[in-house]
């Protein structure tokens, strides 16, 4: 019965309660948090830019010499797909399709978890070949290659390369891990029927965080792996 439908839309609360920004508190809080996250990642990326392009006259390792572009390109693709599945979950619940929302949420969690898994594989592979936060491990395969070809492998700047690489990608990986854990919590709540077409704030807010993590990776992938 049309006249009996709920008239309160919590997605956009009444004006007196939210006069300033006209969004609900959870969403406003997430945006303010993301603004602070921009500054956090700027500190990391900014130091990398300064160290790489300014502080040292010696070149850094060329793209593809130490890091695998192929495996990370796949990871990038995976994260972009997970962003689409996340936004599809939001679109589904906004249209009132709870079942489809659960499916898309699950796809997003799986993509995110696979991303973290591949990053762990990448780290173990790199460390095995001698790439560490402190540079190329003495006596390792990479140290020998760098000694034979100092310019393409950036032998003189390996320490800076290792520390900035592991700090930036490590913090990003930590964010993805937090996203996967939070999204699993949201998924469990979804299974318990906590979200509806009238109130799906949790889905929108975790989506904002997830897309931000994807956005940071887009920048990181370019400046760390391709440049």
């Amino acid at each position, binding site marked *: 019965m049309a006249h009996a439908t709920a008239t309160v839309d919590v997605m956009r609360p009444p004006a007196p309660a939210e006069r300033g920004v006209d969004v609900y508190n959870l969403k406003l809080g997430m945006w303010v948090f993301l603004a602070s996250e921009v500054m956090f990642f700027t500190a990391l990326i900014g130091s990398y*830019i300064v160290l790489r392009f*300014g502080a040292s006259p010696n070149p850094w390792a060329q793209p593809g010499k130490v890091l695998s572009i192929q495996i990370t390109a796949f990871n990038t693709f995976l994260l972009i797909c997970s962003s689409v599945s996340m936004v*599809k979950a939001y679109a589904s619940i906004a249209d009132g399709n709870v079942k489809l929302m659960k499916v898309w949420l699950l796809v997003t969690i799986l993509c995110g978890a696979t991303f973290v898994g591949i990053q762990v594989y990448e780290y173990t592979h790199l460390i095995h070949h001698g790439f560490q936060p402190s540079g190329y491990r003495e006596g390792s395969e990479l140290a020998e290659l760098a000694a034979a070809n100092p310019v393409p492998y950036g032998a003189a700047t390996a320490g800076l390369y290792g520390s900035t690489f592991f700090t930036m990608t490590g913090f990003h990986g930590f964010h993805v891990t937090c996203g996967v854990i939070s999204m699993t919590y949201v998924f469990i709540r979804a299974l318990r029927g906590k979200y509806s077409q009238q109130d799906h704030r949790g889905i929108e807010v975790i989506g904002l965080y997830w897309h931000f993590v994807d956005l940071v990776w887009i920048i990181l992938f370019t400046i760390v792996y391709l440049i």
Partner: protein
Amino acid sequence: MAETRHAHPPYLLIWLYLFVLTVAEIALAFELPFSRNVKLILLLLLALWKAFLVAMFFMHLKFEKWNLRLIAIVPLPLALILVLAVITEHVW
């Protein structure tokens, strides 16, 4: 009465855009017959374009009011100031 929602943006089309831009980026990473600086600028432009698409369509900034958009925009000049300030460390 509940609000009238805007139609969903074409998410799969955005995904296709992002995919094509990523492929273009990876192609640029290979040895190409133009200078490293041109390559660097192109790669950064592609990355910023992708980031812009994610923010506008997936994070729905395109459909938000300006007072919320401002929260997203304000840290950007601050980020630039921070990087420029740190760069002076080696310029001077």
